[in-house]
């Protein structure tokens, strides 16, 4: 852990009662879901983390509470620091406040999380599907969504699969 990160972590611990963890040199801070917008604002304005590198989610199904771990990865360009902020949310009706007002590139990131995980973001200006077609049902990256694996066609099952494969007509 870099020494410049210490006062920042102390600040976050005092203001938002964050829990700090470290693994292989990556520092991650765990914050409650309601405080995320103020935390992001403080990180951007006072603590120098002006770049939101990425936002992603991990699905811990079949655990219900918490089910999703949302990770916000921040980078400080001026001080060359990297910090991850993790938020836990439960599986029933998962939702979080949006941070599009603080970091504009969270717009598409949150849309992607809605599309692929089903996590709603309150206050988002444009909550639509982004990767999948608009009429798709389900949220593909959840663990209870099947991969969509199709049986490969080998020589021993060639004819059976050939019969059921939907070939296009003219």
């Amino acid at each position, binding site marked *: 852990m870099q020494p410049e990160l210490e006062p920042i972590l102390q600040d976050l611990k005092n203001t938002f009662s964050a829990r700090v963890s470290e*693994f*292989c*040199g*990556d520092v*991650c801070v765990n914050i409650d879901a309601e405080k995320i917008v103020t935390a992001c604002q403080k990180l951007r304005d006072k603590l120098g983390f*002006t*770049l*939101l*590198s*990425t936002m*992603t989610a*991990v*699905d811990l199904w079949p655990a219900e509470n918490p089910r999703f771990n949302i*990770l916000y*990865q921040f*980078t400080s*360009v001026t001080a*060359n620091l*990297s910090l*991850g902020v993790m938020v836990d949310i439960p599986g029933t009706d998962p939702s979080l406040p949006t941070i599009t007002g603080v*970091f*504009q*590139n969270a*717009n*598409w990131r949150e849309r992607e999380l809605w599309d692929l995980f089903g996590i709603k973001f309150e206050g988002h*200006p*444009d909550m*639509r*599907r*982004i*990767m*999948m*077609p*608009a*009429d798709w049902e389900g949220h*593909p*990256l959840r663990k209870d969504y099947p*991969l*969509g*694996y199709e049986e490969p066609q080998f020589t021993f099952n060639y004819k059976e699969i050939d019969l059921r494969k939907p070939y296009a007509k003219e």
Partner: protein
Amino acid sequence: MTQLQEVSVEEIKHLVSERALQGDTVLLNMGPQHPSTHGVLRLLLELDGEIVVNCIPDIGFLHTGIEKNMEAKNYAQAEVMTDRLDYLNTVGNNLAYSMAVEKLVGLDVPVRAQAIRVILVELQRIASHLIWLGTTGLDVAAMSTFLYCFREREAIMDILEMCSGQRMMTTFIRPGGLWRDVPVEFEAAVREFIKVFPRRVDEYEALLSRNPLFLDRTLGIGKVTAEQALNLGMTGPPLRATGVNWDLRKTRPYSGYEQYDFLVPTRSEGDVYARYIVRIEELRQSLKIVEQALNKLPLGPVRSNHHKFVPPPRSEIGVSMEALIHHFKLWTEGFSAPKGAVYSAVESPRGELSFYIVSDGGPKPYRVHVRTPSYDNLQALPHMAKGVLVADLVAIIGSVDIVLGDVDR
């Protein structure tokens, strides 16, 4: 499945201006199949005559489900999928993934492997910038640059094919080092390339940089300021063109980059011309790195000795029982990574490329998230494209250098 959906203005009402609803401006679809969108990108343009009032990108036409598919394969098999993310920077994707796995598992990489990795990644950076230059030239109707750039790229593809047998999806860089050592012809081929290339870059600059037609089309178009760029999450050459000196090869050096002496080009205007100049300079600097790495190439092994994670050489399998057992375990089940999550970033030709791998202790990754640079760079497009002509929009899309495989994964 094969039914197209009709989208009415109602559904995107919140994104377009008032004038569209009254029929004052035209909503035009710059569809997924278009020669200038560099892939399957759909742009919904709101046009007032020739001026773009609003530009709404629609992505997802190349969504391959790579992140979910990697959860079903073990760590060695999942690397095959990383090639196909940003298909112009295949060697760089392999490097990013390998570094993430090495960080998770705690593998060392021998110095010879690090130096060869740097050479191949910088050659790939040159190849990617050459394709960008060729297609940008094609977009602003300088068609001969396209042919010249692909000529250089063929030399680099020959070098990659000599090492790994494949021109594009090489999977040469693997966790723990490389697949195998480079052949004897490698050094001669790279030296030949180093000798020939600087004059070629001068040729490209002579074609475009002072050309009044090119300057007219690129100076002052698509400006972004540094704070806007950071807020929008841009990284890579578009960010460096606004004046922010952020290059992960210098600020967080990996794979031995601290030993090489190179500059990071930055400009301050933030328009299309600045991004062009930054990338042309990067071509020269990458060549400098390749030359230094080749001169300093150390001897030694190219794979880590830690055979619990890295396969032993084939010659050992016949004589050593442990080697046979390790080989068997790695090929049938794969190695198990410790429980935890890592985030590891490299500098791709487009920006910050990073992998976030979550492991649950098994042989397959629990979740892999790829932070691709083109995703955030493309989000900035509507901000850059307000009030420009349609022809300028084409130049702006070219300058951001998006690859749709990166955006849609």
